[in-house]
């Protein structure tokens, strides 16, 4: 990273798909955006090494201060992306495959509408992790996200499939409107958890600040989650929300809280 931008950079070309089959020189010619200007990657990054022939055999390592860089790994379908520092919005947004390793924090909208692949965040994740784009009812539908730190609000909104694991705590409104998928919170959850949830499963190892009234106690169960065997209190919800039936039986969302 060189010539730090005055504003923010939109580096939506930094993905194995965009790099594939290009030499270092060609990669340096790819466009980035600073406000309404469109300079090249080469202006801000020193590009070393050529890409593989395809996205699948391309690995990108982003070094330096990328706190003000958005869209790293945007729409990537294969290959590997390693971000060594903390970075900004839309990491791995609309990704369908491949692997992203973010060693620092990532800001909001990471893995928006993710369809597949793997996103590992060693720091903290921002808001709307694995959520749907505004207005869309199709959120994260596949793939796996691991957050080693904490995650923000509205994670997994409109989630329909895939899995999010947060080792730390999550902020308000996790899994709102979810219609499938799995969320595992090793730490604590704030309030509004699973609000308007239609289907899907949430596991919380720590406390829940305030429980949604639409979650009805449904006894206790012995479960093994992520290698941890423990007793969980089971809740069905969100009772207030509409629910479909399968073989004549109403299907609810499931919330398990470790006792």
């Amino acid at each position, binding site marked *: 990273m060189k010539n730090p931008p005055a*504003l923010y950079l939109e580096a939506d070309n930094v993905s194995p798909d965009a790099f594939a089959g290009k030499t270092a020189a060609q990669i340096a010619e790819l466009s980035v955006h600073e406000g309404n200007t469109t300079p090249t990657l080469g202006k801000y990054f020193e590009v070393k090494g050529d890409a593989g022939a395809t996205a699948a055999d391309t690995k990108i390592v982003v070094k330096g201060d990328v706190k003000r860089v958005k869209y790293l790994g945007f729409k990537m379908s294969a290959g590997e992306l390693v971000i060594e520092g903390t970075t900004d919005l839309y990491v791995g947004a609309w990704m369908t495959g491949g692997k992203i390793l973010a060693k620092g924090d990532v800001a909001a909208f990471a893995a928006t509408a993710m369809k597949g692949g793997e996103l590992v965040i060693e720091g903290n994740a921002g808001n709307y992790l694995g959520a749907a784009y505004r207005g869309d009812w199709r959120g994260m539908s596949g793939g796996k996200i691991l957050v080693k730190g904490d995650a923000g609000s509205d994670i997994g909104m409109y989630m329909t499939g895939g899995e999010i694991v947060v080792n730390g705590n999550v902020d308000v409104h996790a899994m709102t409107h979810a219609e499938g998928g799995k969320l595992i919170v090793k730490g604590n959850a704030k309030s509004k958890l699973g609000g308007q949830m239609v289907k899907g499963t949430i596991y919380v190892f720590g406390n829940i600040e305030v429980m949604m009234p639409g979650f009805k106690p449904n006894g206790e169960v012995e479960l093994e989650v992520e290698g941890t065997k423990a007793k969980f209190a089971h809740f069905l919800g969100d009772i207030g929300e509409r629910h479909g039936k399968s073989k004549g039986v109403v299907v609810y969302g499931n919330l398990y809280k470790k006792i």
Partner: protein
Amino acid sequence: MTKTVTDVICPFCGTLCDDLEVVVSDDGKKLLEVYNACVIGTEKFLHSQSADRVTRPRMHQEDGSWKEVSYDEAVEYTAQMLAKAKKPLMYGWSSTNCEAQSVGNEIAEISRACCDNTAAVCHGTTLIAVQDIGLPTCTLGEVKNRADRVIFWGCNPAHAHPRHMSRYSIFPRGFFTGKGQMSRKLIVVDPRTTDTAKMADVHLQVEQGRDYELLDALRVALKGEWLPDEVAGIPAEKIREAADVLKSGRFGIIFFGMGVTQSISKNHNIDAAIALTKDLNEYTKYSIMPMRGHYNVTGSGEVFAWQFGFPYAVDLSRGFARYNPGDTSSIDLLTRGEIDAMFTIGSDPGAHFPISAVKPIANVPSVCIDPHLTPTSGVSKLHVPVAFNGVECGGNCYRMDNVPIDCRKVVEPPEGMLTDEQFLIKVRDRLKQLKGAA
């Protein structure tokens, strides 16, 4: 001799009252009396005449003083600022007419700016909720003619929309509501016993920040399912009673305001309120409506939408329109340090943004187009006073229920003053020259 102008539209709040009568001097230059308006509307019309009014553009000097400049110099500064900026923010638009907004959009398109209106700090989260689950609504006349259940949730029309209750929602006698207030049950949900709550048949004094839980509980109660003993500080029994009152109406309307859009959960509060409205339509007829603040914030959203496709927080920096509040919204753009020029019109972010979002305005080239002196003009490099829209010039506006009403001009602006639209056209034409556009 004086003249009386009738059917005058009040350019203050989203209620957009259109039955004002204004008495003006024979030469149409002085505004003498205002009838039918609320105290705020009356003040708006009368203050437009104040003697100490600034009538020419002014540049802020280092020592804090102001230097008067010509409109042409103001046009030049504004056009140059927008031409040079990499990511200018053009904010406001809610207190001007749709014609000016339309010219503003052309300017934004040429300078590839971010454009946003006051929904940013008002009903922006409502728009997000509407995008998530829709909006069963109606026009205000439907409320007047049919509503027998009226719910004010997190809003206080007695203070913010003073004539709303008498024109549309509580007192008027409509086609199917011949007994006026007697035909209606009023429910107010508010953490305070507001002057609106004092009139309610039922006041649910919700614990501040727990509206989302209470709305969910009401949805559960409609289904007659299990509830905890108390939700949001309100006993389950009272929640079930309220649910029955809602269900028993023939035509219900939920009005909501800043109490829910600005409290934690934000868009989700509205989302849940809309879901509740949708549920109630399984039993009877219900609608829901945001109590829009500025008299033409709704119009700004409409014009943005048919021209760019999005109602607010539109980012044109890449040459095409993008939208995602949290990224392209004014507060985030300012606090995150994403913009390098500030253009404000028809609103006062200086007074109504959190201070951390105001400080950045003072650090970039900035223009404030506003008939008033405001905190925004106070921290902007250039202040361009203009004619009062809806008083000194007409133009189309949209009421809180999206009904368009063409504002009326009642008096002449002071000699030589431009309207928003006239000033913007000059800026657009100069900008086209600078950008070499056709």
